[in-house]
């Protein structure tokens, strides 16, 4: 019988939920180099190889200043890492990159070599959401990569429910929105209405390069260059798409559920 087989199979396989965050975090796959790091001191002032090679114009070179890499726009193709002759841009292999403020994603200046990780919500909101957070997911013209990786968090390996975080079917049941995609003009009204339907107080989480800054669609007339154009964003989770671990880290960080110190490392 199907039901019996399923139950037996489940019993045999035992608990498959990962030990993280109490235990060690699972390793990122080989192709995923994790967050990037920019050591401006090493940067050759005359070189501009990374600026031209970046497909999403995430790297800028203001005159007289060191290179500035916007991790919010980055799609983690690592072309810049390859072309940089002085190894000023490197991969850290670190999955943690969620931030609370947009400017915390810009790397390059002195003491801003890496992202400045997200602070937890204030005490009042943490009391409200800390142990139970209900999110409504809005795919505002997303390509389904970020959605898929968010979806992974619901599987038994990750089991988002154990943190009291859950995705719900109606914004009227939700404490906040998790938005993916560059926010197309067609989705503008729906997104605004969904936001209005969430009861106060509420939070907004932008997941993926598109939702943060428009990603590869930046500047397109039919898109809004991400969520910030319409709504106040409380948490940015960069990636294209972000690894589930990155998203989970961001959510837990926001709720103050990670023990390690936050901020600049």
């Amino acid at each position, binding site marked *: 019988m199907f039901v019996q087989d399923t139950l037996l199979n489940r019993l045999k396989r035992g608990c498959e939920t990962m030990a993280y965050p109490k235990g060690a975090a699972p390793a990122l796959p080989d192709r995923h180099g994790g967050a990037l790091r920019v050591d401006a001191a090493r940067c050759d002032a005359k070189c501009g190889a990374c600026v031209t090679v970046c497909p999403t114009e995430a790297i800028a070179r203001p005159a007289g200043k060191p290179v500035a890499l916007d991790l919010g726009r980055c799609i983690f193709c690592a072309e810049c890492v390859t072309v940089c002759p002085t190894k000023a841009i490197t991969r850290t292999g670190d999955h943690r990159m969620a931030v609370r403020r947009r400017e915390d994603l810009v790397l390059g200046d002195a003491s801003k070599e890496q992202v400045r990780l997200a602070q937890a919500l204030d005490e009042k909101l943490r009391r409200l959401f800390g142990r139970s957070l209900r999110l409504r997911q809005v795919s505002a013209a997303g390509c389904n990569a970020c959605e898929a990786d968010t979806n992974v968090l619901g599987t038994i390996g990750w089991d988002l429910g154990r943190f009291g975080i859950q995705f719900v079917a*109606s*914004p*009227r049941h939700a404490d906040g929105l998790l938005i993916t995609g560059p926010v197309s003009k067609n989705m503008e009204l*729906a*997104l605004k*209405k*969904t936001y*209005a*339907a969430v009861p*106060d107080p509420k939070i907004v989480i932008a997941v993926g390069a598109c939702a943060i800054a428009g990603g590869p669609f930046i500047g397109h007339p039919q898109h809004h260059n991400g969520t910030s154009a319409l709504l106040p964003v409380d948490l940015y989770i960069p990636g294209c798409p972000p690894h589930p671990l990155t998203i989970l880290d961001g959510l837990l960080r926001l709720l103050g559920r990670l023990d390690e110190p936050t901020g600049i490392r």
Partner: protein
Amino acid sequence: MMESSAILLTFTLWVYVAGMAGALLFQRAERLANAVGFGLAALGGACGVVFSVSSLAAGQGMTITPVTLWSGPIPGVRFVVEADALSCFFVLVVSLVGLAISVFSLGYVRTYYGRKNVGVMACVFNALLLVTTLVFIAGNLWMFLIAWELMALLAYGMVSFEHEDRETRQAGVLFFIMSHLDAACVLLGFLVLAQAAGGFSFASFRGIGASLSPQQRDVAFVLFVFGFGIKAGIVPLHIWLPVAHPVAPSNISALMSGVLIKTGIYGLVRVCFEFLGPPPMWWGASLLAVGTVSAVLGVLYALMEHDLKRLLAYHSIENIGIILMGLGASLMFLHTGHAVLASLALIAGLYHTINHATFKALLFLGAGAVLHATHTRNMEEMGGLAKRMRWTALFFLVGAVAISALPPLNGFVSEWLTYQSLLHGFGTTTSLVRLMFPLGGAMLALTGALAAACFVKAFGITFLAQPRSDHARDAHEASLPMLIGQGVLTAACVFLGLFPTVFLKLLDPITLQLTGHQLSQQLTMANGLVLSGVAAQGGTVSTLGIMLMFGCLLPVPLALWAVFARKARTRIAPTWDCGQRALTPHMEYTATGFSKPLRMIFKALFRPRREVQREYDFSPYFATTLRFESHMEEVFLTRIYRPVNYGLLRLSRRLRALQAGSLQAYLIYIFVTLVALLLFAL
């Protein structure tokens, strides 16, 4: 007292006659005919109410002793009327509902001005009230059968009132055929009694069952159940009801569903409790079983309807089932010798009779007002009427709450009494038959829940949300007489719900007459504020208390809101509409969609079939045209009635061989018959 009652009743009948005559006289002047005809009908109804309430309150067994109305030209044929407590109760039903419907009609029939002869309608309406009253007060078989047959014929006339429609004509014919089947069964049943009694007066029928053989009694019982059952609309003899009631004008539908089908109940009570004598177990058990099946199937079919009036018609079947459950349980208790419980079950059945008459007539009048305003019976084309027809919506809501047996209205009271009698039933006998009581109770509970679901649908789809058609958008509130008519019945529903202990006193003479007990004292506790379930372990309930509790609890959320919610910041945002550009009627729940889960659960019964045809150019997801059809098999029609029908036709085709058209053959028939008769005479 008796004198004044007789005068009042005579006056009532003459008012109806005057209404008939007046309406016919002024038929050229529609407004006058309307005012005279329905005005006099209302007056007659009011007199009937006064007559029956005063007689019942006086508590006499026999209010009017048999009086010969008219001795016909044929020797032995006399028309006798009499009125005992049972008659008075049913006269109350017809008069109360008749009064409300007459007032409603004053406004409603304006829709027929210039199209139909309103005078004739008012005349037939008065005649219907007259003959229905005569059915209830008939004192002998002649009077009863003539009134019974006239009632069927007049009702046929009213069903076919809008005979321009093919559907209406067919419904009329079906009603006609079924009415005559039932008249035939009733006639045969009474002939069995008359043979034993040697007379035709009802007085001579009383207790005649004792002098019949058990087989004769059983045959008579079965004939009566068939005859009166067709009239009452029990499953599977119900097929005419959902066809005929909706096509009649709404005021007539209300009269038919509210009162005319109760003549079947009246007949069953009269015959089973008075004429046929002590009942064997299987009579009560079969009535209980038939009642249970009718109740459940009636409400299940009602759920599938999206024609508002057909839906109400199916609910009549359900409620007749509930009434029969009370009567059946009562007969079973009579057999086992529990006279008090028998009285309780009988009271439950009769109470539900008048309750159903009030709330069903109310709902039909509401449906009439909606039909009048939107010109459609299809619920899928309604919606949003609550804003356009505030009072009608309110009255319909009260009727819906009442029929769903929700406290504190009248449907709850009578179903609660039925539960009480059924729950007590388990201990009255040791045979396996006792299992029927809890089973019946469970089915009654299921029926109540399904009825509530059905009226959530009926009220929600009809009155709430946005209008689904231009008709509904342009709907207007009903005229004042129509609202008053509905208001009268609404008030009756509320009164019967909140003050059952007052009304139960009126039923005392009936139970005294039929079962020898008066229960209103035992059923009443705490100065009439609480209704009790007779036996010590029985339950108690107080609808008044429930109402008061509602009243007392209402300030609690208000106070909580005042204390807490007003402090919070209020933000006004649009209703959540899934992010669509705007809400349109296309997004609304449809009646068909609402009932789909139940259609799937009971698909063995409904046998739903659906067909989807999709035409597309390149991908099935982008269809250019889409055609959706859904059907349900009418099981009773296809599995029972149609085979019988075909069988009859085949048989008649065989018999046609006899009718060869040749003179010689006919002469031979005559000769053979003659010889056979002569031989027989020898």
